[in-house]
């Protein structure tokens, strides 16, 4: 997996405006004007956000039309998801080993490992 691409994806997702844009695009293709509508920011600012999203591979913009309708690219999100899955597998394995380790140091009965201090 392209690490740089993934970093760009996560960085792009870190911005609330860009996440809102993605949420809007999840409902379907939209023009820059339509995307700008809910925000109190300028069109150039929206365009800058779109550039970041485009570089991150999260959206595609049609060049043909002047309004440059934008749509969501699902596969970039999939890539981030795949990476997270591998991270999850690593942790599950690590937790298995922690469990085995704890049983070992406490004894099979699950006793606390506390000293049972007798009188002497």
């Amino acid at each position, binding site marked *: 997996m392209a*690490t740089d691409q*993934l*970093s760009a994806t996560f960085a792009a997702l870190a911005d609330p405006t860009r996440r809102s844009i993605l949420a809007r695009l999840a*409902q379907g293709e939209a023009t820059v004007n339509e995307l700008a509508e809910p925000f109190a920011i300028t069109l150039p600012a929206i365009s800058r956000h779109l550039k970041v999203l485009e570089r991150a591979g999260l959206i595609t913009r049609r060049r043909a039309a002047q309004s440059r309708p934008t749509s969501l690219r699902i596969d970039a999100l*999939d890539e981030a998801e795949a*990476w997270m899955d591998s*991270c999850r597998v690593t942790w599950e394995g690590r*937790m298995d080993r922690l469990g085995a380790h704890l049983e070992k*140091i406490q004894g099979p009965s699950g006793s*606390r490992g506390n000293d049972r201090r007798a009188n002497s």
Partner: protein
Amino acid sequence: MTAEPTPKPAPEREVRITRVFRAPREIVFRAWVDPDQIAAWWAPEECEIPRETVEVDARDGGRIYFSMVEAARGVVYRVRFDIVEISEPNLLVLASDPEPEIGLAHPMRTRVVFEAEGDGTRVTVTQGPHTDEMRNRAGAGWRGSLDKLERILRS
């Protein structure tokens, strides 16, 4: 007009794993900061952690460093966690720099919460990428917006 894209859950930006262990919190927590114990359990099956490589400074701003040796391939992975916050036996927050060789492509924030549950301990690990941009944002806002995005994408 294009067709409506298929609604799809947003990817999680964080991995969350939870597990209940049959041991009290104090004992479970020690396993995360005691060098002997780290050497015993942290590495994957194919690796070993030489005890002498484990360096722990268990305090806020401290560190957990060690090396994992994969003998079969003759590879050594150095693991470096900085301790952002430690509250024994409740909480451990670790930060790590990108380590592509062990699959950590981003700065990571790992949060480990230890909660008593019956006779045992519930451990919840949350790990997520931590870019500069994310670091500059209030955690709550970022999480809230993500939840919102996720709800919208799921609907």
